[in-house]
């Protein structure tokens, strides 16, 4: 018997839950083809960064303007080019090319900073033919005078603006740092998102001791990071009427199975593919099928959400944030603290 691996994500029929997340691999046509060949059921293109576009525009403008008309002998210092591709053109071209060569759905990804930018680029991306759009929303709330409520309101407003602009399905990818994650998820859904991707991983500043400089860094994720999306997908699954996708740390078929059990509609991989190459997809897909067969699940659909909070025999376990003996319930086997340490779970006071 071979289990049916199909799943549905934001209304899109996917052959398997294994989606290639936004990464350098999804930034080129060759990379996308390799991912499709290896069995990705959909691809999320590398993000279009509004900030980067803006920065490029201003850079080009400043290079061209800085010394123009300053001296009698030279009115300018650079040739006038037909166009400066500071904007989304090359990205839109990637979307078009991806649609042309791929058979699997193409999800574009947009990382914006302003309301105008979000809607402008979202519309362009839709026009370029993307099957869906994933918004990547994040602000470093560094200003002590800005409240969480203000930031959340901004999220909701932006998502609403974009959802109102396009007709392709909209997913929102967020970080885990909300005081009221579940409420936020609900509001994101209410604002018009049809999918929620949990979670975004961020660049962090690091200090280079060699150069005595601050350098932004992003390390590839590892399996233990699966646990955060696992919790939230399990909690949200069944509570929200939108698709849930897991992202962060998925390295193996076991990670995928767990997330599906928690209620994920799709699992998105990047680090594993960057580390071991697109072929890793094939292996994980095989592993997933084998696990299903071994455990006599007929389909992914059957598996999906069967261990979500709602379906779980121990719903409280998903809400336990601390290692607290006081909550140990004698009717349920208590989690072994050594197990926590062995898996190097992030412990809040560590």
């Amino acid at each position, binding site marked *: 018997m071979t289990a049916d691996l199909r799943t549905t994500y934001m209304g899109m029929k996917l052959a398997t839950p294994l989606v290639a997340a936004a990464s350098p691999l999804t930034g080129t046509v060759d990379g996308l083809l390799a991912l499709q060949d290896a069995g990705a059921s959909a691809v999320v293109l590398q993000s279009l960064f509004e900030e980067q576009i803006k920065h490029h525009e201003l850079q*080009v403008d400043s290079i061209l303007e800085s010394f*123009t008309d300053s*001296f009698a002998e030279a009115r300018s210092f650079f040739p006038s080019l037909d166009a400066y591709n500071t904007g989304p053109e090359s990205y839109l071209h990637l979307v078009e090319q991806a649609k042309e060569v791929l058979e699997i759905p193409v999800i574009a990804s947009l990382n914006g900073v302003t309301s105008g930018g979000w809607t402008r680029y979202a519309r362009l991306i839709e026009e370029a033919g993307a099957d869906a759009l994933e918004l990547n929303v994040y602000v470093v709330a560094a200003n002590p005078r800005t409240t969480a409520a203000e930031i959340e309101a901004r999220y909701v407003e932006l998502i609403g603006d974009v959802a109102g602009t396009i007709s392709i399905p909209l997913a929102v990818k967020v970080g885990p740092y909300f005081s009221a994650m579940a409420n936020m998820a609900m509001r994101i859904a209410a604002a018009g998102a049809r999918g929620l991707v949990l979670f975004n991983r961020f660049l962090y500043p690091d200090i280079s001791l060699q150069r005595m400089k601050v350098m932004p860094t992003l390390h590839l994720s590892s399996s233990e990071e699966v646990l955060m999306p696992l919790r939230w997908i399990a909690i949200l699954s069944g509570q929200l009427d939108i698709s849930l996708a897991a992202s962060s740390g998925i390295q193996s078929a076991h990670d995928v199975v767990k997330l599906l059990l928690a209620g994920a509609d799709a699992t998105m991989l990047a680090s594993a593919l960057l580390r071991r190459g697109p072929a890793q997809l094939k292996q994980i897909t095989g592993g997933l099928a084998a696990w299903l067969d071994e455990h006599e699940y007929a389909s992914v659909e059957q598996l999906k959400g069967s261990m979500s909070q709602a379906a779980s025999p121990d719903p409280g376990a998903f809400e336990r944030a601390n290692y607290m003996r006081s909550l140990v319930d004698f009717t349920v086997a208590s989690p072994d603290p050594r197990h926590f340490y062995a898996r190097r779970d992030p412990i809040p006071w560590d």
Partner: protein
Amino acid sequence: MAEQLITVDGNEAAARLAHKLSEVMAIYPITPSTAMGELADAWSAAGAPNLWGDVPEVVEMQSEAGAAGALHGALMAGAMCSTFTASQGLLLMLPNMFKIAGELTPTVFHVAARTVATHALSIFGDHSDVMAVRAAGFAMLCSSSVQEAHDFAAIAHRATLESRIPFVHFFDGFRTSHEVNKIAPLSDDQLRAMIPDSLVTAHRARALSPDRPELRGSAQNPDVFFQAREACNSHYAAVPSVVRDAMRRFAELTGRRYDLFEYRGHPEAERVAVLMGSAAGAMQEAVDELVARGERVGMVTVRLFRPFDAEALAAALPASVRRIAVLDRTKEPGAPGDPLFEDVVVGLARRPAPPLVCGGRYGLASKEFTPAMAAAVFAELAREAPKREFTVGIDDDVTHLSLDVDESFTTEPPDVVRALFYGLGSDGTVGATRNTVKIIGEHTDLHAQGYFVLDSKKSGSMTVSHLRFGPRPIESSYLVQQASFVGCHQFGFLEKVDVLERAACGATFLLNSPHRADCVWEHLPVEVQRQVIDKKLRLFVIDASRVARDAGLPGRVNTVLQACFFSLANVLPQDQAIAAIKAAIQRTYAKRGPEVLERNFAAVDLALTELHEVDVPAAVTGDIHVRRPVPAEAPDFVQRVTAEMIAGRGDLLPVSALPAGGAFPVGTARWERRDIADELPRWDPSICIDCAKCTLVCPHAAIRMKVYSPDLLAGAPAGFQHKEWRSKEQPGMVMTIQVAPDDCNGCGTCADYCPAHSKQAAKHKSIDMAAKNGGLDADRASWEFFKSLPEFDRTQVKVGTIKGSQMLEPLFEFSGACAGCGETPYLKLLTQMFGDRILVANATGCSSIYGGNLPTTPWSANAEGRGPAWANSLFEDNAEFGLGMRLAVDNLAGAARRLLAELEPQVGADLVAAILNADQSSESGLATQRERVAALRSKLAGAATPQASRLRELADYLVRKSVWIVGGDGWAYDIGYGGLDHVLASGRNVKILVLDTEVYSNTGGQASKSTPRAAIAKFAAAGKRTAKKDLGLIASAYGNVYVAQIAMGADNAQAVKAFAEAEAHDGPSLIIAYSTCIAHGIEMKTGMSHMKEAVDSGYWPLYRFDPAREAAGEHPMALDSKDPSIPLRDFAAHEGRYTLLARSKPELAERLMTLAQEDVAERWRLYRQLAGVERHTPDESITKVAEAAPAAAAAEEELP
């Protein structure tokens, strides 16, 4: 059909047609014609076809000589060709021009006529270049306006095809080439009607072709050359009628009528001026005004100067004419008259009772020619005995040729809006005002004219935009004299420049002011207040800098002030004006993206809400005054002459004030005190590590170090800083890092490069940039005290080290180079190390401009009066120029040595031997030799023999002098390469420093052979396809040439060492110095630290090829940099010249970058092998002995 008028400058007007009517264009950049070539190249790059549907081939050559050669070949092979040039460029084309004309080959050279360098270089306009080539046999057609530059281009192209005589079509550099005016363009249909296919076919039929071979370019003997030369006569004789026919045809097509000579004025004029070029505009206003006043005057504008049609001139003149003044915009010293004058005199001589013809000169190097000056010419003609030779526009108090001018004579009509805008080079004022002209020209029925006066200083330069708008075509070919609107875009100008000098009574004055309307008055200099009150000006202020900042465009006040102008000037209804500005912004910035657009739009909207009128008080208040241009202690010449130029009053200096021959005092930049920095470096001695890197890398020599004895600190002003100098070699000393507050450009290079961080807060360094807050009195006092401290004894310093070199006085200070210039630190270092004994031959280019463009020069002298002896000859000849200096010095030194030997009995054998055998390889050796020479002089003091007096003259040559040949890559790699190669091959002891910016920096970023692959440059807009020429490798092939490739910011010590070794090498030395430039598109303050990436990527390997190393049993080539450690693209990512291409054509950029990376790898591989190669250069001391022998033998013979 209604004509669609366009608003363009003269260069574009001419270039449009040249491009339309050419198949091959070989070009080379030279001011002020550069834009024509650039436009043609850009059009071809964009695929714009010529009239026959093909895209013209535009090729940049290595020089104008090369361009003319290529053009000659293309013409002979049957293509229709044209080129653009000016000044020296035209002169370099001369040999080919004789050939092209001699072979009766049709072509048009479009020339933005420019002064030929004589006692000085000038980039400005006059007819000395075109007059210098008038013997070549080209027909010469002169345009006097932007419209004519367009129209005559078409007429010239037709006439050349029809007559087979090549044409120089010229118009005045800057005045016409750079003036923006509203013109009627020719349509393709009109052009087709102008250029019949039959003419093109005829040209093709004459092509050199293997299908019907002919002999061309034969050599002829005395038997036939003369006759053959006369065979062209009928072709020349036909030219006037061919041109007249072309003009007639042109009039049929366009309604615009021209003639070979055009008369305007009183039908029975007695006094007539004859002239050509843009001055016709000023002249005709004067003629109209004088005729209106009842005077019988008139003018003839010459269109076709050569072949000179005397009959046509005579026909154009009214029969009533009694006296003629011929005005030449050139000077031919020693001639009986200037060229146009001579032609007119000869042309009229055959007339019975010819009129009295006087010749006048005007307008050299774009000197203004105004209606008042034109009126002065007529006034002179009215005198009983007018000057037969005169000048107008200057005060000649030496030969008294100049005419007095009644400055109150003006012709500016009241219905013309005249506006003046004072801006800073980098604030976009010129761009915005040019846009304003276009907006008004293209959105209204008004005619519009813009002319822009730009500074030659490359940092902190002032721009003045002169705009006119009116109901009739504007032909006023002179600066605005009475402005109805004055915009001052930089508040700081008020204390430096008389911005209201040309404000008319009742004019509007718009001031960009950091002070609000209710308090600005007290911040205005008294002189400004006085003019505002006396001239009843309406004063408006806006804090445009803040508005620009708020709109997200810091520093770019142009858009804000442009909106204010439209709001105040009432040229257009405000709504319409704002919509037009936004449309213009859309046109200019759309392709740079919506963010840029939106910020500019925001600046416009914000501007209108922040503009306020000032209630002008009835009386002046306060004690702020316009600053003196130079301090009172400046030397006499600086006070009398330099200061006037600095203050913008150079036009008023009489002939007697200026040295004939062009020699000026050095060290004058220090008196200018430009005070242009927004921020100054601040030194924190507590964390300083004495590395001296700040002073080493300073492009302006504005941050200095001195090491001195602590007891000299007595009397130091409060706030003067110092610290202990940590050095075993100079124990017990203190040191100070001091900024020259009025001379610093605020570029921030020192702070960026300072390696000394605070342990408490990493962002704080020993050098930080800090805003100039308020007065600089304390800084000025510290600087004055610092200057009073003695210079360190050169003999006690290790010159060839970083610290040692920086303990020495720079003799190159406060240049007007771009803030953050990558070239100037090398020159400064050169002067610190050897400045008291060098002659410098400097190729034309950036370095000759910041080095020698008046009013001031950074080249200076030390307290003993010694310093670099600097001169610029030309662009193409610099290596040869320097070699000549070497030959002279060697020969004179030889003569001195011979005389010294002869005079041994008087001088004494010991002293003679000591001088002749002196070791002058070190500072102390040089110092001792100078002492010996001083002793020699005192011994010779009383001697009256001819030998003794000759030796007195030449004694200084007994002290070693070195010759440094300096220039950019345009010179070294391209135009001057032949000479450079020859000089390297000469084996002579010359030092060559190439300041390699990898692009023609001075003319605006055109590609040179040094431009790297994958970078964009003009003429390589789609990225340079070929790899950079390896000049160092070529030079090292000689084996006896010292070659170093250096990048100061990447390895200071290697750079200093290379200078020391190059100087010490007894033979030719070549240093190729990586020089960051604004044309790289980098943040200039990071220029020095960015060089590290150039080296780390392997893009710029550091090496020294020292032939002397062979003697020590080593390999001559030493690689000084490590294996590439970062990819080329990481280096390129920080440079606009690469990233712009990646933005514009990503796939092409990617391909070129891959190749460029291969270039790097391959060059590194090759160098690494070369570093292991043994090389033996034959010992040249044998030849040196042989050369020296005759002189020694001669000396022996003459000894008693």
